[in-house]
């Protein structure tokens, strides 16, 4: 096995050699060769070269979960040689006589799926021609059990290797090294003859880092202050201020809400029932980020907070409430069981939960192994059920509890006593009401029966007075034929309006008494029912819960533990006696030195949010189906740094945002426009221009107009359909987007258009689409138009004044163009204000002049007034024109992208 470090060095040396040649030509040469004959000269081995092909195409049926069809076991060369019903599968040294090859060539095998690719077939042939070699003597087939067996080659996959903590490489451009991050990045740029761009200007920097860390733009006053701060550490101070701001938690909690699949509704069915307590978990997240809660505690509490709180849960301390609230993480997957309690729906909750937890913490598509061994990664069918065992105690479809049953009341004994006392007062009132209603129903029936003649009258009376479940079919038929005698409490008002009124009064009186109870709050939690033994976890044939196979002990996937280690989760942790402790054990293992994945996955995800792209671009997939890291050593360095920082994020952010890589310009080097070795910017030879996410776009618009409401926490702001049927934030609220209700079936139109995830399960990485619906939304949508109008009024009325622009620039701008006779004195100031508040920068003199011209043109041509304005006076006309200016600026690319 080649050591990771050495492999990297080989890669670097290879890069160096290439850099000295004519780059593109040589690159083509290399790849062309690769395409033609995929390294046939080398000695191929079964473990390294062949098993991955068989795993992808053959092993399900020949050795894997579907058994050994045709009695052929292809997991080992020895069993391929001993063969199946039709004889040996291969004939070493003789490709033409090898049955395996014949079957593939004839397109008979594999019977379904994409088929073996020509390159793979070529490799199989070569291997057989070379004598069908193995890397080492093979184990006995029995030793593999029901798994495909793990080879050292599979264990050696980059993501499974221990984190290397490499020494930062030395680089030439030491002047550009601010943090260790820079060394790693420069080390891959310098061999290409390039480096970082120069630092971006201060205006760009404050905009970039504020949008990144706080998710809102810097205010004009903050920009002015930063520009005026000439201390050498002005930028560091800015970063510290942002990390300490409450907006930081709101911004970074939102990122985690994506991977958790946060929603304020249950999803999974058209009913999409409300999830009334989810917001407490959202608030927990915001606090956790703002408190810089170490990531190990952060995840452990979310996975197993309940296992740290001894029962009974009657008098919870604030800390215990926090621990339980954190388990809201495991309550985020879609759960339609309130509306659809089918076995399938219950089982789906389990499946989704495993999916969210594994891709979030391990970055592996473990979910693939639900039905069969993973086709590309060494995750076996058994491994999947090891992990599933973690959730069987609470989520097994038998004994499943509906969402409403998995809540904890925050009542303490005192509250309960107070509530019981109130119920005592209600009791006599309720009894009185019940008696009154029963009597009224009787009276109504008597009155109604007056309309009938005997003997029908008596028959109806008997039928109506018989309890509904005791009625004979004849009685039912009789009543169905005479529906008016079927008097229920709900229709009593149609018979005795006065009695119904009286009942209403009594209800009101009871309600008034009950209102004296202390308000009862709930948190939605994940826990294991204390009164039930965990069910035995079983492997399920093809993932079907109705087809259980053998028992599987809850545990860690084999490839993620050292060879020969015990994989079991049970027995490693003894929780407070009411829970299996499996989730705590899992969380401990996640942050142990044994597990290289979690630190890498988390570090990569944070990097992705800063730069718009992860070092591993497929942030939720580190397996072979994902993309490899662009900078494997940097990734390991970041993972190590995360640990060294005690898993605390704020310092970790600084490692990144204080780097030269982060501070450099986003503009391409004009000297290498056509021939850029880093054309797509993956190597970070410039800061990547990327579009703001949906939440930041909405929040930035609100900030610009002055409508942004900084109130934190609490129940979500509701959403509603507007006059046109689009979903908008209710009540024109200016709360930050993180507080807007996330109802799966009713995504806010603006947010969905800009790729905010509509949670089906969860979102590992957002897409960034560019479509006309977005443009239409910004051109014609009520939200942006309304905020533009708001901004125009605030600017013209000088509620906001220019903060950045120099007075002389304003006057110069004013001097350009032809002034209109009715122009308000504050006009050019208002224009400058609108620029500053939208784009977080002052306009240039030219831009100011052009904007004034734009405003005047609208006035001159008599643009119709904004809704609500008369338009017969100068103020109305200029307000209208200024609103158009604000809207245009907020629809512009400069507003929508960070640079």
């Amino acid at each position, binding site marked *: 096995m080649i050591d990771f470090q050495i492999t990297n060095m080989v890669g670097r040396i290879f890069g160096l050699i290439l850099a000295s040649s004519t780059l593109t030509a040589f690159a083509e040469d290399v*790849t062309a060769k690769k395409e033609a004959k995929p390294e046939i000269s080398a000695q191929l081995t079964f473990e390294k070269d062949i098993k991955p092909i068989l795993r992808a195409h053959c092993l399900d049926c020949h050795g894997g979960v579907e058994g050994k069809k045709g009695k052929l076991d292809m997991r080992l060369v020895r069993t391929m040689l001993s063969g199946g019903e039709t004889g040996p599968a291969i004939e070493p040294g003789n490709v033409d006589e090898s049955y395996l090859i014949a079957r593939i060539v004839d397109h008979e095998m594999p019977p379904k799926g994409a088929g073996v690719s020509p390159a793979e077939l070529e490799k199989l042939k070569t291997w057989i021609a070379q004598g069908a070699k193995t890397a080492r003597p093979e184990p006995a087939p029995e030793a593999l059990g029901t798994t495909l067996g793990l080879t050292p080659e599979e264990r050696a996959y980059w993501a499974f290797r221990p984190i290397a903590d490499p020494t930062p490489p030395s680089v030439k451009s030491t002047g550009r090294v601010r943090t260790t991050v820079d060394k790693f990045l420069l080390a891959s740029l310098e061999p290409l003859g390039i480096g970082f761009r120069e630092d971006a200007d201060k205006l760009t920097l404050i905009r970039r880092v504020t949008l990144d860390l706080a998710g809102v733009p810097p205010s004009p006053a903050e920009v002015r202050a930063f520009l005026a701060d000439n201390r050498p550490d002005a930028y560091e101070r800015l970063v510290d201020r942002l990390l300490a701001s409450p907006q930081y938690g709101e911004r970074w909690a939102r990122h985690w809400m994506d991977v958790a699949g946060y929603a304020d509704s249950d999803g999974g069915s058209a009913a999409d029932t409300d999830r009334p307590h989810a917001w407490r978990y959202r608030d927990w997240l915001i606090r956790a980020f703002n408190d810089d809660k170490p990531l190990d505690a952060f995840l452990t509490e979310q996975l197993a907070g309940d296992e740290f709180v001894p029962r009974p849960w009657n008098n919870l301390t604030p800390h215990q409430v926090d621990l339980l609230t954190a388990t809201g993480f495991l309550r985020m997957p879609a759960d339609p069981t309130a509306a659809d309690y089918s076995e399938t729906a219950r089982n789906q909750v389990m499946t989704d939960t495993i999916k969210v937890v594994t891709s979030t913490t391990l970055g592996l598509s473990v979910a693939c192994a639900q039905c069969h061994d993973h086709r590309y990664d060494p995750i076996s069918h058994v491994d999947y059920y090891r992990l599933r065992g973690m959730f069987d105690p609470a989520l097994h479809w038998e004994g499943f509890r509906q969402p409403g049953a998995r809540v904890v009341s925050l009542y303490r004994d005192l509250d309960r006593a107070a509530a019981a006392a109130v119920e005592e007062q209600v009791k006599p009132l309720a009894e009185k009401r019940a008696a009154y209603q029963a009597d009224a129903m009787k009276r109504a029936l008597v009155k109604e029966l007056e309309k009938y003649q005997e003997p029908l009258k008596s028959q109806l009376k008997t039928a109506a007075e018989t309890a509904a479940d005791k009625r004979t079919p004849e009685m039912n038929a009789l009543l169905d034929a005479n529906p008016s005698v079927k008097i229920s409490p709900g229709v009593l008002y149609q018979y005795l309006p006065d009695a119904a009124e009286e009942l209403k009064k009594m209800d009101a009186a009871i309600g008034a008494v009950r209102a004296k109870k202390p308000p009862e709050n709930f948190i939605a939690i994940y826990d294991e029912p204390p009164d039930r033994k965990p069910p035995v976890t079983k492997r399920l044939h093809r993932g079907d819960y109705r087809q259980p196979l053998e028992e599987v002990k809850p545990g860690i996937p084999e490839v993620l533990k050292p060879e020969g280690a015990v994989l079991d989760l049970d027995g490693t942790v003894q929780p407070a006696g009411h829970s299996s402790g499996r989730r705590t054990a899992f969380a401990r293992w996640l942050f142990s030195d044994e597990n290289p994945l979690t630190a890498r996955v988390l570090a990569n995800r944070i990097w992705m949010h800063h730069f718009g792209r992860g070092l591993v671009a497929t942030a939720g997939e580190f397996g072979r189906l994902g993309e490899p890291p662009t900078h494997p050593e940097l990734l390991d360095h970041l993972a190590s740094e995360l640990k060294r920082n005690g898993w605390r994020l704020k310092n970790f952010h600084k490692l990144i945002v204080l780097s030269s890589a982060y501070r450099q310009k986003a503009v391409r080097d004009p000297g290498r426009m056509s021939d850029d070795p880093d054309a797509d910017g993956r190597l970070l030879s410039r800061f990547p221009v990327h579009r703001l996410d949906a939440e930041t776009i909405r929040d930035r618009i609100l900030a610009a107009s002055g409508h942004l409401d900084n109130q934190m926490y609490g129940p979500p702001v509701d959403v509603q359909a507007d006059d046109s049927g689009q979903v908008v934030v209710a009540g024109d609220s200016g709360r930050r987007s993180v507080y807007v209700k996330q109802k799966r079936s009713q995504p806010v139109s603006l947010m969905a258009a800009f790729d905010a995830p509509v949670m*089906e399960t969860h979102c590992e990485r957002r897409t960034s*689409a*560019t479509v*006309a619906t977005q443009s239409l939304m910004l051109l014609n949508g*009520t939200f942006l*138009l309304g905020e533009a109008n708001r901004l125009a009024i605030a600017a013209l009325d000088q509620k906001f004044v220019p903060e950045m622009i120099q007075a002389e620039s304003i006057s110069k701008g004013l001097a350009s163009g032809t002034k209109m006779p009715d122009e308000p004195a504050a006009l050019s100031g208002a224009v400058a204000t609108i620029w500053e508040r939208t784009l977080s920068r002052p306009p240039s003199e030219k831009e100011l002049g052009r904007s004034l011209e734009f405003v005047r043109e609208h006035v001159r041509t008599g643009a119709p007034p904004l809704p609500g304005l008369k338009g017969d006076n100068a103020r109305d006309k200029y307000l209208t024109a200024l609103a158009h200016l604000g809207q245009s600026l907020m629809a*512009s690319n400069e507003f929508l992208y960070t640079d």
Partner: protein
Amino acid sequence: MNGPGNDHAETHMNGLFSSAGQSSRRQFLNRTGMGMGALALAQMLQEDGLLAAPPKPISKPAHYDLTPKPPMFEPQARAVISMFMHGGPSHVDLFDPKPELQKRDGQDYPGEIVYSFVNRASKKLLGSPWKFAHHGQSGTAVSELLPHTAKIIDDVCVIRSMHTGHNGHEVSIRYFHGGIAGILGRPTLGSWVVYGLGTENQNLPAYMVLTDPDGLPVDGVTNWSNGFMPPMFQGTVLRPREPRIFNLNPPEYLRGEVQKRNLAFLRELNAEHADKYPGEGDLEARIASYELAARMQTAATDALDISNESEATKKLYGIDDPVTREYGTRCLIARRLVERGVRFVQMFLGGQPWDNHSDIKKTLAGICAKTDKPAAALVYDLKSRGLLDSTIVHWGGEIGRLPVTEGTGPGAGRDHNGQGFTVWLAGGGFKGGMTYGATDEFGHKAVENVVTPNDFQATLLNRLGLDHTKLMYQHNGREERLTSNAPNARVVKEILV
């Protein structure tokens, strides 16, 4: 599966959907200018045992768009209009006459039946209250409930052997749209079609959904979900009321010159910004998307305006009759959209009008009266305009109904039946005047030439020049297909021209 023109398919896949598939690696490197560091890395990973590379690209395409894409092989159709008849049209009362059922009306069904509504379940066979007759030259049997469909039946291929195996609406609806029974969150058929083919008219949405004034169908907006694909592959709803398309038209005070001026100013701002960041494709794409938005305002308004259609055409669709006016208008708009190059149009009904659990005599007759004439008019009109050959018209629901009665007396109806039911297809390379497949003697189970929703999808895609096994989308590193769970789904060749 080896469809015609498989070679094209290969080129197509590599060029388009797997931007860095093995054979297009060079092209990929050229396009992205991926640096040497990355190549060295690729080399490193080769060493790393990543040798039997999974059949997947190293990277997703940088962006997606809706520009027209060449099909994988010679297509028969270029557009689809789907009249989705959710609820479960009662095939034994509409397209699948069963003499045995009529004969044994009132007797017990001799076998197992899966019911959805056990409380009203019965084993008593319920003969169809309606008469069937043979129509057209083909002599295809059509119920008297569908007199207009009967007139175009020679253009229609009736599939009598549909089978989902699930009785539930949602389960089967998701099977039809997303490809997997019961699973939400997947791209729908329309998404796959426009992902694969783009659209011919960039001024109109590629995938349009016409909803009913009575509300959304079961499962709501997920019926036209883009699932894990980018939102551009989602169906754009053409609402039954103004505004027909959200944000399409500016509010009054912005119309005309005002917005033109704003757009010109915005263009200036964006041009200056783009000058600063040359080579950033996304910035340019967004500039273009504003231009498109402006053009869409005119194009869509025009497409929806049926006032210039002749009186004869309006009458054909039943727009002169209050019963058929609404659905007829939508069918006519569907034709206008396809005429203008929209790729995929799907019409839905409010609620579950075909879900005739009770009072089937009245309720089934009602929904037939509303839809029969417009649906037939659509086929007729497309044909007379020479558009039928290139347009697939689909009529059908997600399930059918049981041959036994649900409830008794005048309130009797039929319960769900996912075991066997009928849909029809017309135009777009399907054989007209044929019936395909069969249910058992009572119409409960499909027994001959069974067609699953995946077969149905594979066949539709085939007519559009797409191979369902090769139309792939990378999601979380996996290759997803519309028929992901059914690689053996078959193209029903017998019904193809």
